[in-house]
Structure formats: structure tokens, C-alpha cells
């Protein structure tokens, strides 16, 4: 990793001040939202639903393909 020079160090301090000011939300809310978003999407996720995989375009339909 590189050693910073003076101008870089000043920029780093400015950046850290900016990052500190970020409005953080409570993880109880954000994590619950994340889990819900995943659970809502699972029924449409082909990897988790064999039914959906039946429409898989990469499965060979027959022996020959008309190009």
C-alpha cells in the first residue's frame, strides 16, 4: 500500500469527514427489508424453482438446431 503525501492526506481527511456525515439507517430496518426483498423474489428465482428451469433457453431442445 502506498504512503500518502500531504495533498493526498488532506483529501483523505476531507473524504473521511464526508463519509462520516452519511445518514445511516438502523440495521433492524435495513436487514428486515433485505430479508423480505429476498423472500419476495425467491419464487421467481430459477435456481430455486425447478418449474422455472423448464423454460431454460440453454437446454438442448432436440438433436439439431436450425441456424
Amino acid at each position, binding site marked *: 500500500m502506498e504512503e500518502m503525501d500531504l495533498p493526498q492526506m488532506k483529501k483523505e481527511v476531507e473524504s473521511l469527514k464526508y463519509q462520516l456525515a452519511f445518514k445511516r439507517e438502523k*440495521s433492524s430496518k435495513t436487514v428486515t427489508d433485505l430479508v423480505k*426483498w429476498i423472500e419476495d423474489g425467491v419464487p421467481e428465482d430459477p435456481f430455486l424453482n425447478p418449474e422455472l428451469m423448464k423454460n431454460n433457453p440453454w437446454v438442448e431442445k432436440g438433436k439439431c438446431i436450425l441456424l
Partner: protein
Amino acid sequence: MGEMEQLRKEAESLKDQITAARKAVQDSTLQEAAAGITVVGRIQMKTRKTLRGHLAKIYAMHWSTDSKLCVSASQDGKLIVWDSITTNKVNAIPLKSSWVMTCAYAPSGNLVACGGLDNMCSIYNLKGKDGNVKVMRELAAHTGYLSCCRFISDTEIITSSGDCTCILWDIETGTQKTVFAGHQGDCMSLAVAPDFKFFISGACDFTAKLWDIREGTCRQTFGGHESDVNAIGFFPNGNAVITGSDDATCKLFDLRADQELITYQDSSIMCGVTSLAPSLSGRLLLAGYDDFNVNIWDMLKAERVGKYMWKLYIPLENGRKVDPAEDSEGSCRVAAGTEH
């Protein structure tokens, strides 16, 4: 105290304050929220297609937004655009420099880009008038290798480099719009947010940074990895970031609460992560490793639910694919796809 010493102390103090601010909002964990959820069943994958044609290591590939076409870059000096369903080569583009490390497909499907040890990002127009694919622009300014590039549109592209910076380019004029500086090590990869307002970068300073594309600022920095961050991606809804590192782990970071949620690791895995992609729902994480394995993780329970050798298949999902760690056979495998 010298100015440098003062600044160093100020930086340390700010970092401590950020740590405290993160703790202050940590009133729950992912483990708690997912406690009542059962681990998904074992995931089985099958090789569906093998795309043969490259004559040397394939370093990168990227899907088109239609999830049918994809582009791959090999150190045989070629960029190949494939129709993954028929396995036909749509274009085989000879490169000026064969030391290519990354490639990208524009969302429109009109352009592809690549770059590597030439320190440049070359843009190719696939839809030129006479049908020939030609270099449209050569974006030169980085003082280090090009590790990754991703299009925002046909007129803008973001690049990450071994010179520790990322750059937003105006493709038409070939000039730099914004330089994103702040990483203290080589930038290894980048990913653009689903809303195109932000992008994330992973670097050899062991951190990932979230950047505001229009403001040019770093909004958040995520530490925790113990080695280079090689791979990075957004969680499908854009509210979280997934990283893969040489420390053999992947991590999930919550953007809204500004903190690490969970680590995907196993004592039996001792090699670095080279690429990753979440499934459509975000429930699964597919990660490629240096030992040529792809591990599939249940993202909520942090348990491995599948493991496959690259020789069997490389899973792809939602228009993304897990790159083979190093495909030394010169062929690129794509399998068991999905539709949007």
C-alpha cells in the same frame, strides 16, 4: 506537531467516529433476521454450453443485457462476441495489445470495450456501417493496467486501474470526466449500481468504496477483508454490496446501515475469490475461486449449498456469470441459465 502528523491524527479520529456511528445503528444482525429461515436445498448445476475458440487464457467475460450474447477477452489477442444459445461466434475482434485483462458489453449492445497492460480502454463499435468492427476510441490516461471497465451508456464508461484510481470517461471526446481517487492500492474491479447513480470498486488496499458518479465523491468505504478485494458486485436491489477477496472470503455489506452484515467463509476454503455473482433474488451467491471451483452460498444463512469444478460448469444468473478463475484450456463454459 507537523501538519502531516496532525492530519494523520485527524484521519484516525474520523475513522474511529465512523466505527462508532456504525455501532450506534447496529441494533440487529442478519443472523437474527434470518434465524427462522431454513437453508436452501442443495443446488445442482449442469454444463449446458461450451464456447470453444479462444487459444489462450480467457481473462474476462461480460454478458449483454439480453442474456444471450456475451463477450470474452483472451490473451490470444482476441475479443469474441458469442451467441451463447447457438454457441456461434458473432464477432472475433483482433486486438492491438494481447495483454487484455477485462472486457465489457454496453447496455445498448452497440459497443464493447477492453483493456489491460496497455493501460488503455479501447472501445469497439459492433454496429458500424460497413459491418466491420473497428476501434472507435482509445481512452488513455491511466498510469497503470486496466483491471475492469463498465459502460454507463454508449457515451460514458467507467474504468478501474492498477494506478489506484477509477475514471469516468466521455467516449465521444475520449476525455476524462471525473477521476475517482482515494484507494491506497491497485483497483481490481468495479460494478455499477442498478440505478446507474453509483459504482463500487474493490482494491488491493483491502477495501471497497462506494462512489457517487455525478458528485465524484466517495460516499462510503468498507473494510474488513484481510487481503486484496478482487471481485465486487451489487446485490440485485442495489442496497448492498458483495465482495470477494484473496483472503478466501466473500462479504456482504449493507449500504443503508453502512456496515458489514456477514462473511461467507469455510475453513476448508483457502484460496482467493476471483469473481462473483448473486442470483436473481439475491438468495444465492455464486463465487469463483483460485482453485477453479465455484461455490454456491445461501446468502441469508452463510452456508455453502453447492460446489462445482469449472470443468463441470460455470453457473450464470441474471445476465451475470462467474468467471472461471483461470480458464487455461482456452474455452469458456456457460451453463444452466436463467431469464429475467
